[in-house]
């Protein structure tokens, strides 16, 4: 059947082209129908390699389908559909085209069967998504987008170098298990790690996502990091180093999230925290852990999207996103408030919400495999994520002190998109079997036993109690207008300043060197002229340059005169 040959990125790229030439309702219809049609088609596609051809000496497989890639393929379609509905009111063609291309690139990357195809989509992800940041059209979004692009392209270049090494070592470009052996393994690991926001390589995310447009951030939060999670799950399952990296990723961002004022940046930090859970799962590498990582990625796309959408609605309606400016919005934005709380409950992994059914798999796997301290860190991070994403986000935006802002709920398309995401969050939470049936491994895991439910509920309620207690005691840090230094300080401040100082010193040395050289040269000339003063008084005097020029002019004039009379 010819339909089988259509890789999912193609409809999105065609959609992008159409979106560039159409306007109004027609464009909206095209944009909404593409993820629907593409998803229905994907549902019918069996596993296997559907497209391959030889390129130089290598077999390329731009379209390979298996359970792992299908999971990400499905959720990317859901995410694209929700985000497109959310952005239907936007009339900026640049954003709509970039969003379609970006979603297509994400799909292309997860169905890439070889490293070269993966590299192409890896770079396309960077180049298409940066326009969603630049589309904000502010000075700060421009520079943040630039930094984002540089880091993403760097990741791509490292991936290409790793791919070349891989081809040399293995004689094949097939994207399967890679492992940390040889230069290729490490280079590709670093490339994936940068896109996955590993600690110290995470600032592109917290820097750029809050600078993107209201709708752009919703797209951004869904694809880039999840493609990296998918790549790690395929290339490096069971790599123990990932357990420690992931545990660090779950813990350190929550400290920054507690003191951050920009609520979308709080969500960016919590995105790193959630990706940390997935990375731990991939690092453990058992069937249960991998299932947990993949299903958590699936759920995270939806509930993180929902949270970004609710904060986007606040920004869209009020023009503000800092916690210090907001508060009391529940009075006039009741629907957004409820939807935001559904997202907050999901990310906090409340029983009956989607986060619970996936995160608990990673936690159980950590305990089963003897990672006791890692389990304690994950438990701390679970309490912490409830603290900053579950309570802080809704509390400072919709409750807290009354900011006096009285804005209504956002346009209907935004509400509808949030509603779809919220329904999915609850549906997956209540009926996880549907999600589990799509997973690569069959583990027979049941999240709803009394022990798990009680433990998680106790943890969350007492975290809430801690919040209340700290607030009543006045110990909770108030929202302050501020910038908090993070690792990006190194390349945004320390390096430029150090370079500036080094150049200043070099310039000084250079200046002094030139000065002394010229002075010495002068002395030499004076010395020579004095020395020959005795020989010829007329010739070796220190004449000014002007007189020299004058005499040259006189001689030339004489030549001219002579040539005329000749």
């Amino acid at each position: 059947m010819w339909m089988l040959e259509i890789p999912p990125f193609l409809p999105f790229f065609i959609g992008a082209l159409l979106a560039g030439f159409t306007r109004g309702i027609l464009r909206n219809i095209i944009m909404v129908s593409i993820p629907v049609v593409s998803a229905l088609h994907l549902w019918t596609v069996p596993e296997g390699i559907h497209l391959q051809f030889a390129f130089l000496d290598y077999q390329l497989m731009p379209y390979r389908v298996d359970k792992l890639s299908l999971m990400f393929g499905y959720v990317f379609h859901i995410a694209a559909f929700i985000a497109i509905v959310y952005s239907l009111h936007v009339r900026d063609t640049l954003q709509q085209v970039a969003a379609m291309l970006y979603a297509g690139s994400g799909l292309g990357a997860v169905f890439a069967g070889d490293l070269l195809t993966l590299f192409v989509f890896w770079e396309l992800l960077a180049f298409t998504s940066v326009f969603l940041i630049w589309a904000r059209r502010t000075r700060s979004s421009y520079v943040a987008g630039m930094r984002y692009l540089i880091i993403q392209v760097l990741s791509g270049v490292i991936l290409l170098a790793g791919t070349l090494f891989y081809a040399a070592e293995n004689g094949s470009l097939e994207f399967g298990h890679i492992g940390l052996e040889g230069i290729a393994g490490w280079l590709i690991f670093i490339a994936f790690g940068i896109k996955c926001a590993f600690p110290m390589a995470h600032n592109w995310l917290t820097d750029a996502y809050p600078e993107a447009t209201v709708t752009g951030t919703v797209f951004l939060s869904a694809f880039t990091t999840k493609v990296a999670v998918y790549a790690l799950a395929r290339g490096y399952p069971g790599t123990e180093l990932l357990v420690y990296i992931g545990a660090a990723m779950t813990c350190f961002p929550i400290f920054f999230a507690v003191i951050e004022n920009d609520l979308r940046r709080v969500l960016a930090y919590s995105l790193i925290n959630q990706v940390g859970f997935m990375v731990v799962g991939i690092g453990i590498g058992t069937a249960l852990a991998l299932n947990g990582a993949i299903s958590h990625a699936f759920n995270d796309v939806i509930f993180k999207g929902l949270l970004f959408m609710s904060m986007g609605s606040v920004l869209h309606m009020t023009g503000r996103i800092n916690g210090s400016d907001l508060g009391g919005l529940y009075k006039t934005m009741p629907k957004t408030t409820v939807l935001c709380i559904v997202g907050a409950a999901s990310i906090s992994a409340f029983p009956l919400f989607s986060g619970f059914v996936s995160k608990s798999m990673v936690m159980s796997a950590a305990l089963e495999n003897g990672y006791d301290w890692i389990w304690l860190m994950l438990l701390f991070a679970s309490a912490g994520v409830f603290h900053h994403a579950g309570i802080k986000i809704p509390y400072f935006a919709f409750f807290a002190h009354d900011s006096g802002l009285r804005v209504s709920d956002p346009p209907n398309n935004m509400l509808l998109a949030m509603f779809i995401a919220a329904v999915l969050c609850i549906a997956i939470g209540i009926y996880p079997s549907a999600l589990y049936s799509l997973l690569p491994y069959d583990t027979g895991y049941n999240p709803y036993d009394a022990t798990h439910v009680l433990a998680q509920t106790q943890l969350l309620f007492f975290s809430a109690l801690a919040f209340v207690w700290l607030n009543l005691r006045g110990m909770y840090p108030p929202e302050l207008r501020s910038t908090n230094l993070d690792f990006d300080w190194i390349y945004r401040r320390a390096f430029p300043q150090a370079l500036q100082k080094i150049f200043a010193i070099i310039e000084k040395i250079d200046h002094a060197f030139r000065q002394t050289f010229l002075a010495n040269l002068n002395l030499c000339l004076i010395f020579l002229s004095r020395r020959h003063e005795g020989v010829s008084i007329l010739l070796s005097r220190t004449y000014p340059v002007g007189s020299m020029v004058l005499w040259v002019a006189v001689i030339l004039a004489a030549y001219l005169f002579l040539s005329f009379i000749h």
Partner: protein
Amino acid sequence: MENEKKYLFDKPENVQRLLYFLYICCALLLALDFVIHRHVMHSWENLWGFYPLYGFVGCVVLVLVATWMRTFLMRPENYYADEGKTDYAETFNNVEASDDVKNNRTKRHSNGTGDNDVDA
């Protein structure tokens, strides 16, 4: 956050009701520790009130450490904006002094939200 549908948090007694509801839930959950028999995978889980205590202490430590981090990580809002300037301490104090939200609102530059009506 459970009964946000009342829209009446302007009344202190409603806030108080919500807090009482939270306290009762916490007490009930703690009491359930006696009733429900856990099948545990780790010895720490056997300790009475392990999860509640860990959640509470964890969050308090989190907030206290984060607050302490502010002492050396916090810079004025426009820290990265004014690249040429070196004396940040002065600007920083000004920001802290005028922290009052309402005072600052008028000064705030209008931020493009991005979904502008550009039809390129």
